């Protein structure tokens, strides 16, 4: 039997551009308010079996919380059907129903009552709730003095101790400290074993992978993926990386535009160019780096890569004079300016004999496997002569992002495997 069944549910919100909700305005102006429609959920269907633990992931504003609210019965769908069977307990936001002036104990009674328990049932569970929340010392203090972590402890303790058949949790666990989070996770696992249906929204993908039987990825009000946690989370991360990439390229475009505009406006004085001091660029410009392009294995311009992907750096150059034995080099730094790696054509014995006047071309630097951990990296590109005289040096002028699907820490991914033998 399905504990939750959602069929063809659509929910739109009206976003009022100009809001007035007074009787006077309605009568005097006699018109309806102007509004735009925002479709939070678009024809969503989903069935959750009894005892399943399902996680919802998606970017902010994708409709996860709306769906959870529909399940609780706080919101009603515009069309479609929602059926939830069994006692539902939900933890949508911290401190809903807490009264700041009352003590923790009084609030437990109130909150549990709100969740539909009778006084007798609450009394029976009171000690358990207080014990779980670890707030024994503060339980008779007014909750206005509680920290947000304490609020969450209390709310969570009440919500799970009512022993619901269906538990709905919106991203609230993040407030607790590590120990309490662990305890919550254990408790959730416990409930899961007892056959509680759990639906939760979280951005903690690690926890989600550990706890869920199934993960549903929602984007722009539609279900994109609904499958095993690992599978969906990987796809989701990949999507995030692509989105991030688009944003970075857009941003870079904006910055370039601004620079161009600046240069255009700076008249025809030749000296201006030199006066325009660029902290990150120096050299005599006998050979100039005209562009640096990062590409993936498809030859697509990118600024965000998955760890292990191929990365191609294309360095466009133009020489203004005759130079012998130019050396092209690159370096990669972390945001904290830790030097991760650096090399040049000289070190690698890749000889470029000479460049004559007005030569234009490009040099490729290919990384078949980008073995870096997740994070943002700064890229330095330079052209100089054999002795280190700089023609054009772009110090950490470029950056790219690496997203990792695994949770290793550090900077470099070292190829490895684990093994074990007993003596």
């Amino acid at each position, binding site marked *: 039997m399905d504990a939750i069944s959602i069929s063809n549910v659509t929910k739109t919100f009206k976003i009022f551009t100009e809001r007035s909700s007074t009787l006077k305005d309605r009568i005097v102006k006699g018109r309806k308010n102007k509004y735009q429609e925002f479709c939070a959920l678009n024809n969503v269907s989903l069935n959750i079996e009894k005892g399943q633990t399902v996680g919802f992931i998606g970017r902010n504003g994708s409709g996860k919380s709306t769906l959870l609210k529909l399940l609780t019965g706080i919101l009603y769908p515009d069309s479609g059907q929602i059926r939830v069977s069994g006692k539902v307990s939900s933890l949508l936001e911290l401190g809903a129903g807490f009264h700041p*002036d009352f003590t923790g104990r009084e609030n437990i009674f109130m909150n549990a009552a709100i969740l539909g328990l009778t006084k007798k049932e609450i009394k029976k569970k009171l000690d358990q709730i207080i014990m779980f929340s670890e707030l024994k010392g503060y339980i008779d203090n007014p909750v206005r003095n509680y920290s947000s972590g304490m609020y969450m402890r209390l709310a969570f303790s009440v919500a799970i101790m009512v022993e619901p058949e269906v538990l709905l949790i919106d991203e609230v666990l993040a407030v607790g400290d590590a120990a309490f989070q662990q305890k919550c996770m254990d408790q959730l696992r416990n409930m899961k074993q007892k056959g509680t249906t759990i639906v939760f929204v979280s951005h903690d993908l690690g926890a989600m992978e550990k706890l869920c039987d199934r993960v549903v990825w929602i984007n722009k009000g539609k279900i994109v993926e609904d499958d095993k946690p690992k599978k969906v989370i990987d796809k989701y991360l990949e999507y995030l990386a692509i989105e991030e990439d688009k944003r970075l390229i857009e941003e870079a475009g904006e910055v370039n535009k601004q620079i161009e505009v600046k240069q255009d406006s700076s008249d025809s004085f030749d000296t201006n160019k030199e006066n325009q001091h660029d902290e990150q660029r120096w050299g005599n410009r006998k050979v100039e780096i005209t562009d640096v392009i990062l590409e993936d294995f498809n030859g697509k311009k990118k600024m965000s890569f998955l760890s292990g992907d191929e990365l191609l750096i294309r360095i466009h150059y133009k020489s203004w004079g005759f130079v012998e034995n130019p050396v092209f080099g690159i370096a990669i730094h972390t945001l904290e300016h830790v030097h991760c790696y650096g090399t040049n054509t000289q070190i690698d014995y890749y000889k470029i004999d000479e460049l004559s006047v007005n030569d234009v071309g490009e040099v490729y630097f290919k990384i078949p496997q980008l073995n870096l951990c997740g994070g943002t990296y700064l890229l330095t590109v330079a052209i100089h002569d054999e002795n280190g005289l700089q023609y054009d040096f772009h110090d950490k002028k470029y950056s790219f992002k690496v997203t990792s699907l695994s949770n290793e820490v550090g900077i470099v991914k070292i190829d490895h495997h684990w093994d074990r033998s007993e003596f």
Partner: protein
Amino acid sequence: MYKKTVEIFKYRQMLESLVLTDLRTRYKGSFLGFFWTLLNPLLMLGVYSLVFKYVVRISLENYTAYLFIGIVVWNLLSQSLVSGATSVIRNAGLVKKIYFPKEILPLSVVLGGVINFLLSLVVLFPVLFFSNVKVGLPLITLPIILTVYFIFTLALTTLVSCLNVYFRDLEHILSVVVMAWFYLTPIVFTEDMIPAGLKSVFALNPMNPIVNGFHKVFFYNQFPDMIQLLWLGLLSIGLLIICYFVFGKLSRKFAEEI
């Protein structure tokens, strides 16, 4: 309707919590505590007695006692309406975050009002005693009048509580309406003082039989007009069903509108 009633019954513990919260927040932290609730009608009583007894010179034996009964009775309706109007908005935190039958919100306001009313009786009886007003057997009809009054108040409070979410200025309009209504009800005057030509107009006021009933029981030591009350009771139940229907329709969008 039946399903809703069962559900509200299931949430009775929450209802109790809300009523107690309401009562306690009203008294907690205030030095005079419970006496604040009595202070309001007592002050009103003082002002009205002064004006109507000595300035307008209404000649009625024990006018103060008569006035006090009316004011205490009226307070239940006026406070329920005014406080009920904002009850949904005040509890936005609950409405937006958890599911519960929203009908509980106006219901808790009215129940709180009833408790206040009963507590006021504690003061009313000494006043009656010192004014030498006799009360007796007709007191047994008190639960009947109160029940009718309760249903009537609940119906109106439920209606304004949901309408106020959509028309926020309703609460301001309401205070004017309540004031006008106060003067159209025999509280500061007696029914006999209404000119014969206007009697039919005043008869339309549904608060008339209720306030009259209380006056009869507490002031005249007479049995109230039961048939009139019965009619009003039926009317109130009908009204309540309509109001609950409207509330049910409108409450679906509460979480978005607040």
